[in-house]
C-alpha cells in the first residue's frame, strides 16, 4: 500500500512538474505575441527593423540600455523600438509607469525619467491598468524575467 502511495506521489509530482514547465514559443509565435500589443508600446527611433523591448523605467540596466541607444544616432536610424513598460515587482515602478502612459509625449517623459532621472508618478487609471495587464500577460507568455529584454524582428 505504501509503495502504491509513493508511486502515485511520484507520478503526480511528475505531472505537476511537466505542466508547470515553461512552454517554449517559436520565434514566429513570439513576434506575433509582441505585435499583438503593439498599440500599448511606446515608439522610439525611425529605422526599418523592429525591436521590441521590455523595460522597467526604474531598473538601472534598462536605463543604461535606453541611454545607450538614445546616444547613438545609428541605433535610432536603423531600428524602430517598441518599448513596453513592464514592472519589476521589487522596484515598485507601477506609478512611474502610469505617469509615462499618462503624459502627452510618453517617449519624452520616459527618456526624462530613465536618462535624466526625473522623478514623477501617478496612480494608474483603469485604462492604464488595462494596458499594463496586457503587457504583463504577453511578457509572462514570453517568459520574460530580465529587464531589459529585447526581441528583434527579422
Amino acid at each position, binding site marked *: 500500500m505504501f509503495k502504491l502511495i509513493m508511486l502515485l506521489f511520484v507520478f503526480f509530482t511528475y505531472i505537476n512538474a511537466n505542466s508547470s514547465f515553461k512552454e517554449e514559443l517559436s520565434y514566429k509565435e513570439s513576434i506575433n505575441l509582441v505585435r499583438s500589443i503593439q498599440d500599448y508600446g511606446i515608439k522610439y527611433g525611425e529605422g526599418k527593423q523592429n525591436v521590441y523591448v521590455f523595460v522597467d523605467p526604474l531598473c538601472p*540596466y534598462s536605463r543604461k540600455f535606453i541611454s*545607450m541607444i538614445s546616444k547613438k544616432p545609428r541605433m535610432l536610424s536603423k*531600428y524602430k523600438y517598441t518599448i513596453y513598460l513592464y514592472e519589476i515587482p521589487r522596484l515598485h515602478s507601477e506609478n512611474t509607469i502610469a505617469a509615462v502612459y499618462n503624459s502627452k509625449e510618453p517617449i519624452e517623459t520616459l527618456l526624462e525619467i530613465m536618462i535624466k532621472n526625473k522623478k514623477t508618478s501617478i496612480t494608474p487609471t483603469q485604462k492604464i491598468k488595462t494596458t499594463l495587464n496586457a503587457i504583463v500577460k504577453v511578457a509572462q507568455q514570453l517568459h520574460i524575467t530580465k529587464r*531589459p529584454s*529585447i*526581441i*528583434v*524582428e527579422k
Partner: protein
Amino acid sequence: MYYNIPNINKHLELIIKYRKIIIFMFSFFAIVSAFLVQPKFLSSDELFWLNDSHEFKKTKMQNFQTYRQSKLIVHVKDFDDVALGDLQKLHSDLLNLEGVQKVSSLFSNDFICNEDNENNSGIVVVLNSKQIDTLKLKKLVKLEHNSYSNVVDKDFKTFYFYINSTKKLDLSKVTIPGKFTYINNISEINWNELSVFAFIFVSILTVLFRILFRNYIAALSAVFLLTISTILTFTAIILLTGIHTIHITMPFITITIGLVEFLYFYYRWHVSQYKTNELNALKKMLNRSMSPAIWTSILTFLGLGSLVFIDSDIIKLLSLSVIISSFMSYILNLTLLPAILSHFTLEHTHVPYAKLGYLITSNEVHYNKKFLFVFLSITYLLAIIGAFSLFSKTHNFFSLQVQNEQIELKIPYEQIDLELINSVKKFTEELQEKFEDEVSEVYSVVTLIESLNEASSETDELSEEAVLQAMFYIDLYDLDKKYFDENALSLTVDLFDINKLELLEWLKNYQNIELYFLDHNSLLSIAKYDQAILLTSSLLFALVIIGSIIAWIFRSYKMAFVGFSVNVVPIIWFGLFVTLFDIPLSLEMLIAMTISLGLASDATIHFAYKYYRLRYFGRSRKHTLEKVFFYAGIPVFIGSVVLISVFASLYFSQIESLQLIGLYSAILISISLITDLFILPVMLLSVDKFETTDKDS
C-alpha cells in the same frame, strides 16, 4: 663528336684582327642594355611571388584588401598598472601608424559578459581590455587562457601584437615598453648590403686567382666577362619574356654558370702558354673547350627548356637565366675572351697544384667496384625513398613550422543569417577537430555571436532569434567593423605550433564555404609551396633529359646512367642532410639545386668529353684520367672553391632568402665538387668501352 677537332683558325684570325672592336662593341652593348633595358629589382620580393599566386589573384578579384603581417613581441618585467598603460598606449600608437589596418593584441580583445552577475539583467556588456584594470584583466585572461595564448603568455610578461598593414612600418617613432622583437617576414633588399657582397665576391675572386694563376688577368677578365654576361643575359630575358622583375637571387645563377664556363676556357689558355707560338694557347683554348662548352649549353637548353613553357614567371626566369647565361657565356668565351687574352702572354704558367690530380688518379684508377656498387645502391635507395616521401607526404616534405602566428581570411556573404553562421561554425569546428591543439583559436562573427548569446540567454544553442539579437548588440557596441564589412566576414585563425603549409592546403581545398586569404605571409607561403612542387617535379624531369642527352652525345646508354647519377648524387646526399637536420624543402633550396644541377651537368660533359677523346686517341686509362684532372678537374676545383667561398659569405646576409641560398648552394657545390672529383672519374672508368692497353694494368 668528341674525337673531332674543330678548325678555328679563320675564326681566331678574325677575332685577333678585330679584337679592339669586339671588346668595344660588347662593352658598348652591355652599357646601352644596362641603361635601356633596366630590370626592376623590387624592393621586396613579395610581389614577385604574389604575381604568380592563384590565391592572390582570387582574393584581388573580390576586391579584398590584402595585408602585410608583422609581429611585435614585447617583454615587460612586471605587468602592473604602469605597464598596462604603456601597452595600451602602444596598441593605440600602432593603430595610428600610417598604413596600419588592424592590430590584434590583448588590447583589441572584447570581453563579453552579462551586466549583472546574478543574471537579472537582460543587457549584454562588451568590455574592451582598455576599460579593465590589471587585476580584472589578469583574472579574465586566466579564466580562458587558451583563447588568449596567442596574445599574452601565461606569466603576463610577454605580449604579442599582430599588425596588418598595407605599407612597410616604421616603428622608430613608437615608444615600446620593455624589450621587444619585431618580426617582419618580408625581406627588403638592402642595396648597400648587396654592394658589400659584390665587393666580397670580386675580392675573393681576385685574391684566389692571384694566388692560383699568379696574375691579375684572370680575375679582371673574369669580372669583365661575368658583368657583361649578366647584363646581356637579363636583357635577353626581358626582351624575350617581357618580364621586367628580376629575383634578387637570379644573378647568382648567371654568375655561377658564367664563372665555371670561363674557367674551362681561361685555364686551358693559361696552361697552354709554354709553346713558342703565342696563338697556340688561344687555339688550344678554343678548339679544346668549345665543343664540350656548346654541348653543356645544348644540354641545359634541352634539360630545362620545357620549364620555360610553365605559366610561372619565377620558373620561367630561373630556367631562362640558366639557359641564356650558358649560351651567353659560350659566345663571350668564344669571342670576347680571346679578344682580351690575345693582348697578353704569361710568364708564370706552372700549376703546382696540378699534382693533386695525379695523386687522385693513382688511387682512383684502382677503384674497388664493390664500393662503387654499394655507394650507388645507397644513393638510389635514398632517391627512391625521397621520391616516395615527396609525392606521397608532400606536406611533411615542404613543412613550414610556425609558432604564434595568425592567418587572416575573408568569407563573402549576401546576408548574415543563421544559415551562414552555421556554415562558418561548421567550418570552425572541422578546422579545430582536424588541427586540435595546433590551432589555438578561430575568431569570427560566429565567435562573437556565440559569446553574445551565451551572455544574454541560458542556452548555448544558436537560433534565428539569437543571431538577430546578437547582430543588434554588434551594432550597439560598434563591433561590426572588426568582424565583417558590407560583403564579407573577417576570420582570424590563431596558430599555436603548426605546420602552416598543411593548414593552408586544407583551407585552400575547403569546399563548403568560399575562403579568401588576406595576409601576405599566407599568400606567399601558398605561392612558394605551389612553385616549389612544380620546380621539384621539373628538376627531376630535367635530370632524366640530361641523362638521355649525355647518352646520345657519347653514343653510350651507360653514359645515361653516369650522367643521371653524377647529377643526382649531390641532390640526394644533400636531401639526406636536410632530412637529418629536419630542414623543410624551400624554393631557396630548389634554386640552389638548379645551380648545382647546372654545374654538375657542365662538369659531366667536360670530364666525359676529355676522357672519351683521350681514350679514343689511345691514351691509357691512367694517363687519360691524369689529363682529365689536369684540364677539367682543376678548373672545376678552382670554380667550386670560389663559389663555395662566395655563397658561404652570403650566409651572413641580413636577407633570409640570400642566407638560405648561400648556405644551401655552398653545401650543394661542395657535394658536387666531391662527386666530380671522386665519383665521376670512377664511373667513367667503370663504363669505359675502349680497349685496355698494357699501361692500364
